[in-house]
């Protein structure tokens, strides 16, 4: 009997330990000129002594992660109002808060919750937003992210991207025990959910434009194959398993096609596949490497990596085919592009003098700006509002993720307590 319990406990422990660890976020490079905002702990009324989620802490962390807003420290929170009538603007002007966020969380008798929040312009003493939301227990973090989005948009004029997700690959163990895991987590690193594990490499996750599916490359059969998987249900189907490379899947903006790299004709080339029928059309034709396709947001062009000019550079070709135009000229290596949601900037891996960093090319001005330090940065992915780029980098011998503002001024690191993280891809807005 004793042994039985011990066994059960062990199984429970093992089962629990397979719940993936959250990414922890650390701001590594601050930004001057951020808007100072006071976020006051939300009031709580309900059956339990404390609230099930600290809404203000979630919102505050979100806003700080943007680099454009800086929340006041707890010590500067001179009062704890939870509704407008309790606010004395003069006090908040004294601690140099431009804006103030207050709110209340209420636990209802039926187990549901209500969230109320208000945003005030402290300088003018005026309410900017007042809103309330019903929520289930599981939705509370998401509601907090939604509130962050509303605040961010009101204060910066730019849509917030807090209520989004990140897909990424982790690896742990070595040799025969090496494990590859494909996960999806909230944009703040919380709520990581495993969608696939394998003892062979998993690569190149790509979100469908509606955020419901992820295409990826799996070597589970000791050959590269492309699958598409529904994030919510885990059901998947194999899309490409040709001879040679099956790689670099990228969804078209309308979600009906996938650009991908195949070497079935004897050389890595880019193809367009109809997702529903599997019908294939070859897009590129060169004796060199052509890979890493990304669609422009208008769906008319593909940007890709090719070494047809002697070294890896980015090119653009019409989706219907035609002459490829070279886009990058600085540095001896430019590859792995992602395009901003407005189609005006391209992020890439930029190699120069043995240093691999993330660079952003402005397509209007043709100016290229290096936004990270290297030396082994890769896999840039724009946030859906275009303000940040998440990418893979190194911290010592470990693989971690970082996010940097598009201008390179603000940076943060996302890491696991143990193991390596790589290939981050930011989800689209709507899911």
């Amino acid at each position, binding site marked *: 009997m004793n042994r039985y319990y011990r066994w059960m406990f062990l199984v429970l422990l093992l*089962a629990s330990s397979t719940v993936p660890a959250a990414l922890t976020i650390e701001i590594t490079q601050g930004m001057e000129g951020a808007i100072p905002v006071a976020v006051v702990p939300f009031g709580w009324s309900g059956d339990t002594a404390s609230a099930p989620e600290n809404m203000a802490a979630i919102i505050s962390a979100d806003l700080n992660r943007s680099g454009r807003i800086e929340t006041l420290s707890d010590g500067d929170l001179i009062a704890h109002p939870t509704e407008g009538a309790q606010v004395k603007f003069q006090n908040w002007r004294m601690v140099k808060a431009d804006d103030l966020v207050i709110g209340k969380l209420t636990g209802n008798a039926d187990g549901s919750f209500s969230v109320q929040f208000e945003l005030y312009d402290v300088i003018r003493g005026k309410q900017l937003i007042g809103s309330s939301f019903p929520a289930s227990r599981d939705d509370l973090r998401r509601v907090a992210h939604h509130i962050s989005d509303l605040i961010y948009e009101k204060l910066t004029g730019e849509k917030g991207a807090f209520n989004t997700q990140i897909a990424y690959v982790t690896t742990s163990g070595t040799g025969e025990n090496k494990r590859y895991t494909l996960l999806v987590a909230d944009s703040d690193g919380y709520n990581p959910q495993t969608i696939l594990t394998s003892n062979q490499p998993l690569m190149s996750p790509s979100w469908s434009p509606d955020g419901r599916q992820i295409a990826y490359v799996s070597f589970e059969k000791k050959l590269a194959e492309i699958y598409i998987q529904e994030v919510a249900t*885990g059901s998947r*189907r194999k899309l490409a398993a040709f001879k040679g490379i099956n790689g670099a899947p990228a969804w078209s903006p309308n979600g009906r096609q996938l650009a991908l790299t195949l070497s079935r004709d004897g050389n890595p080339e880019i193809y367009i596949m109809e997702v529903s029928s599997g019908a294939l059309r070859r897009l590129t034709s060169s004796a060199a490497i052509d890979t890493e396709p990304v669609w422009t947001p208008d769906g008319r062009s593909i940007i890709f990596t090719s070494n047809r000019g002697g070294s890896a550079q980015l090119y653009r070709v019409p989706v219907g085919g035609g002459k490829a135009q070279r886009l990058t000229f600085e540095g001896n290596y430019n590859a792995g592009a992602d395009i901003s949601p407005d189609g005006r900037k391209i992020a890439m891996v930029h190699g120069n003098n043995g240093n691999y960093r993330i660079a952003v090319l402005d397509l209007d001005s043709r100016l290229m700006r290096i936004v990270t330090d290297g030396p*082994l940065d890769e896999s840039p992915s724009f946030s859906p509002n275009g303000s940040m780029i998440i990418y893979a980098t190194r911290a010592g011998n470990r693989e971690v993720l970082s996010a940097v503002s598009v201008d390179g001024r603000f940076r943060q690191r996302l890491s696991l307590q143990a193991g390596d993280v790589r290939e981050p891809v930011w989800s689209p807005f709507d899911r």
Partner: protein
Amino acid sequence: MKYMFSSVMVLLLIAVMSGCSSTGDKQEGPVSIEDKGTSADGGVTTSGAAGSGSFGNSSLDDPNSPLAQRVIYFEYDSAEITMDGQDLLVHHAGYLVANPTVHVTLEGHTDERGSREYNIALGDRRALSVQRILELNGVAPEQVTVVSYGEEKPAAEGNSEAAWRLNRRVELLY
């Protein structure tokens, strides 16, 4: 009481386990393979210059045979095979021609620098270069399979040229 407690434990266990798989951690979902006509050869015409055949007696197990060397190394961002590499591949081609039922898998690899999918393509080009030399020396296309792992399976760990040069390779796996 004892019975009740263990049922609670079992329920807990189920809860924890289903919690883990709530996003559908399915290894094998409904999988449908749509294999649209894989064209067999890599656009390479074999010249039929069958090697000397003098390696027919070489054993893969003989540590003194050139066949014991099964890794071809490459320069950075290059799929070009060195003269040494070509000499070694002639030995392997001879063995494969003499043993037409033997099959070899060519695994292309790169160092960790640069982007991952570019490295998959580079590893593929390296393995295809090796395949071309084997086929020019008379090896039948059916005897050779090519797979690229890019930077995903390094032979040596580390972020220095010492490790990188060992990782830029094609492995011949019999």
